[in-house]
């Protein structure tokens, strides 16, 4: 327990003494069966996207009779506007969101974790309270506000709130991490006449790269997957994100082009899968230490 919580979570489990080899085999068999059942739908979708169109519904097997990438080309150009545009839009929104979240939330978290000011505990409690409020309560007045500002059908309603630290969850995550950084470091810097800004910029942020990365990755994935926000604020197809593009594809081709639909669905999962592959440890630690929802 002297270790930081971040490492103890992924440490290997204690060895179980006197384990029955038969039980171990059974457990492995059950786990393997469960793993296959869990990822079968995903693998099936990938294989459906690369098999000849007429084979998609005739076979439950994962192996296509021949590999055929034409679904990707059909899907990419399946709507009036190519999927390249939707991917680009999603990337723009996600990158801006990540920037806003990391900047604004780390500023607030530094204030809560390190600075002394009147009302700090009060505001901290308020911040925690906002985590509980379902966004539906603010949805309609926010929409009216952004409508009057002329922001509907732009990315501003999706992005500007992040620069005002609207995802308070990340503030909480960062406060937890900042509190674990030894106070002696910034106290010594303060003795040397360092301003709070310099301490934040030169000491806290460089020491907090793991939590900043965790927040950035989750923020990217949630924004990439977000459907509700774009659905409400974006009308012009030129502005659609990938999720809206997929939804339009489902509506326009629900019975005809399953191959193209699965190809684009598979592509839309690639960025998230990439983060899963390379930053799995950070993601799992983030969930285990804070109880993040996804």
């Amino acid at each position, binding site marked *: 327990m002297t270790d930081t919580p971040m490492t103890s979570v992924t440490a290997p489990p204690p060895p179980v003494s006197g384990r029955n080899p038969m039980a171990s085999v059974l457990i492995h068999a059950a786990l393997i069966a469960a793993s296959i059942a869990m990822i079968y739908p995903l693998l099936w979708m990938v294989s459906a996207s690369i098999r000849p169109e007429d084979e998609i519904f005739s076979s439950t097997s994962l192996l296509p009779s021949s590999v055929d990438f034409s679904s990707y080309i059909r899907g990419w150009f399946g709507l009036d506007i190519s999927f390249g545009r939707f991917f680009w839009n999603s990337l723009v929104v996600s990158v801006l969101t990540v920037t806003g979240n990391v900047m604004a939330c780390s500023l607030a978290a530094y204030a809560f974790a390190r600075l002394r*000011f009147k009302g700090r505990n009060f505001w901290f409690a308020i911040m925690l309270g906002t985590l509980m409020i379902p966004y539906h309560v603010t949805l*309609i007045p926010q929409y009216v506000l952004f409508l009057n500002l002329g922001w509907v059908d732009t990315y501003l309603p999706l992005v500007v*709130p992040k*620069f005002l630290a609207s995802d308070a969850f990340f503030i909480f995550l960062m406060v937890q991490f900042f509190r674990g950084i030894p106070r002696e470091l910034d106290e010594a810097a303060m003795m040397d006449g360092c301003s709070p800004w310099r301490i934040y910029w030169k000491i806290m942020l460089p020491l907090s790269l793991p939590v900043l990365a965790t927040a950035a990755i989750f923020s990217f994935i949630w924004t990439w997957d977000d459907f*509700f926000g774009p659905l409400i604020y974006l009308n012009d197809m030129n502005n659609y994100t990938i999720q809206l593009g997929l939804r339009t594809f489902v509506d326009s081709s629900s019975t005809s082009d399953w191959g193209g639909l699965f190809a684009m669905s598979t592509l839309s999962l690639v960025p998230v899968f990439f983060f899963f592959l390379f930053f799995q440890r950070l993601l799992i630690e983030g969930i285990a230490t804070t109880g993040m929802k996804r």
Partner: protein
Amino acid sequence: MNTATHASAADIAVERHQSVRARGRLARLWASNAPGYLFLLPWLLGFFGLTLGPALVSLYLSFTDFDLIRAPQWTGAANYVRIATADPKFAAAMQVTLTYVVLSVPFKLTFALLVAIALNRGVKGLTFYRAIFYLPSLLGGSVAIAVLWRQLFAGDGLVNAALSQFGIEGPSWISHPNYSIYTLVALSVWQFGSPMIIFLAGLRQIPTDMYEAASLDGASKFRQFYKITLPLLTPVIFFNAVVQTIDAFKAFTPAFIISGGTGGPINSTLFYTLYLYQEAFGNFRMGYASALAWILVVIIAIFTAFSFLTSRYWVHYDD
């Protein structure tokens, strides 16, 4: 005359002295508080402008008729009265959502707990299994997965193709009003990975010497689970249950994609949030939708309060 001017000069001097001292106090107050508030400024702006302000406005709107074009018309409690007494769609949405919550949360948590316990026995390849089980949680919120689900449970979908191997002819699960909700429950249970990871972290905190002592005393594995694991894990179970339930109340995307935005067939997938969306952005009944939003808040608040109140009877905390 002379004395008066003297007196006033003295007064001015005293006043000046006091104001200098006051300014000094102000300056100190400023110096000690300004950095904190400056760092907090973006969040404070967001809190007042995007959370507190809008929440109060939506409370006001919930007592009005508002269609975005004309100014809101005050109607008193009419929206709430209609919701409570004369809105069959509200009743349907409530029933669908409660069914979804009551079925998906216990199944999801049970799976998560069972798999976490199996993985915590020191199995080889823990990180591999954990990754596989976690993947659906990470991908599950996207439209692509909802699209996939719609195909899996369609009349000619993968599930029925698999069932036909056993000679069973399944219905079109998605478009049958009796079954459609269960496909959404299955989608939610499939994403048991993140509560599983939290359970794993919780299991790791239970000291192993407790089990050693128990098995020396001859306690069976089942008894150890029932008497050690489960009680010590209740805080984590409690946490997961609250978080997952609130999340289930807020579910939107899968129902929207699977039903094409209608909540059909026959309102069988009309999640509460989907109904709220239809009222606000389909029918532009913004006042009515605001009332629906506040009812959702009250339901979630009542549920959360209830969980915390009952927690002391079943959640085990170290003193």
